[in-house]
């Protein structure tokens, strides 16, 4: 029970940190193509503790991000939920992959992010450019292995 509590606390802290990273101001060149950092953190937490960090976490953190970013409520929550569902389906396979393979699978897992952001942007009449979304996906694929290792290091240090 204590271990489970510890898991929830460390994941919540990580997600809070990710939320702050997500709204951190950046130079305007990087601004439009920033990777979905909160989603990547959430992906890691789900891969690490698939039985504890589940869709509820994804939905709530999506709503929190919507509130902070002044987006229509449910915009981020929708694709967070779908992405985390995909990971919960395939986490046994993804865990065993090598880091090159992991990069490829994160590319596939980010497809709902791409689809829903383009679809919702056009429905809600938000101006966007597809190239920026694609660049943000490429950046998140590139940073994923190092992010994964870093987060694993933090988790192993503080949950043992």
């Amino acid at each position, binding site marked *: 029970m204590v271990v489970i509590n510890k898991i929830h606390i460390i994941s919540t802290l990580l997600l809070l940190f990710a939320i702050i990273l997500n*709204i*951190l*101001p950046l130079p305007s060149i990087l*601004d439009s*193509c920033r990777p979905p950092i909160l989603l990547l953190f959430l992906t890691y937490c789900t891969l690490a503790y698939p039985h504890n960090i589940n869709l509820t976490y994804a*939905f709530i953190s999506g709503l929190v991000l919507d509130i902070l970013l*002044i987006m229509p409520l449910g915009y981020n929550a929708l694709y967070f*939920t779908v992405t985390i569902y995909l990971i919960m389906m395939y986490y046994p396979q993804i865990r065993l992959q090598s880091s090159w393979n992991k990069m490829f699978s994160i590319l596939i897992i980010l497809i709902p992010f791409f689809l829903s952001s383009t679809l919702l*942007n056009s429905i809600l009449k938000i*101006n966007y450019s597809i190239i920026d979304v694609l660049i943000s996906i490429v950046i998140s694929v590139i940073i994923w292995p190092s992010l994964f290792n870093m987060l694993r290091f933090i988790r192993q240090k503080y949950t043992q």
Partner: protein
Amino acid sequence: MNNNLHFRQNNFTLIKLVLFIVISVYLMYTDRQLKLGTEVRNNFSYIIQPIYTIAESPLKLYKNTSLYIDTKKNIIKENNALKKKVLVQSGVIQQIPPLKAENKRLKKLLSFSSSIDTSKILIAELIKVNLSPFSNKVIINKGDSDNLFLGQSVVDSFGVLGVISEINQNFSVVTLITDPGHAILAVNARTNKRIVLSGTGDNRKLKAKYISLNEDIIEGDILMTSGLDNIFPGGYTIGEISVIKKELNQDFLHVKVSPSSALSSNREVMLLW
């Protein structure tokens, strides 16, 4: 046994997934009417404000350090430039009172009503957090306690910026004039013709709607607020006409306007009463 457990959880997850998707689609669908997001931001602004502050702090730290490290030479140079600017501008300002008096006299002769004078100006600072790159909103650090009101106009030193669309405890949200859902009634300074400008979502351009093919309009015309929409006081610069395209199979001209205010880079804005 273990397998069974796994299977049960899977089913449960699927139900959860469907439930969450339905909830989020419903929330998005009703967002315009219910304004749940606004309500939540309003009630929890004491939590949200610190998060914004923390997120903004690295940038502030960087700015403060660079100010501290800045060389004396640079500062003297900047000071001189600013002094020159003040001199030029105060020279221009000297001409304003006689112009105002003359204007008043002429208006009296034509029996016009008196012109609109804004009585109070409040300077607010932008909270530089990264909203979605595609959203046309900014956050300012003045809120409920400064007697703001919804629909108050926000300008910067170059022109009109937007209107206040949401007021919370310590911060408010400004919708920029380039927001796709925003329109403003402008007047052409050269011809005094009224023009409706609406946002495109792109921070570098507005589009002018319903301008007939034979309208007197040229590139470089300056557009001002008309004061007729009861939102913006009249006489503030909005922008300059940048592109006019005539397509013969269409009923109206295709006109683009570039806003004069520094929509994406400014740090301080003014609130008008």
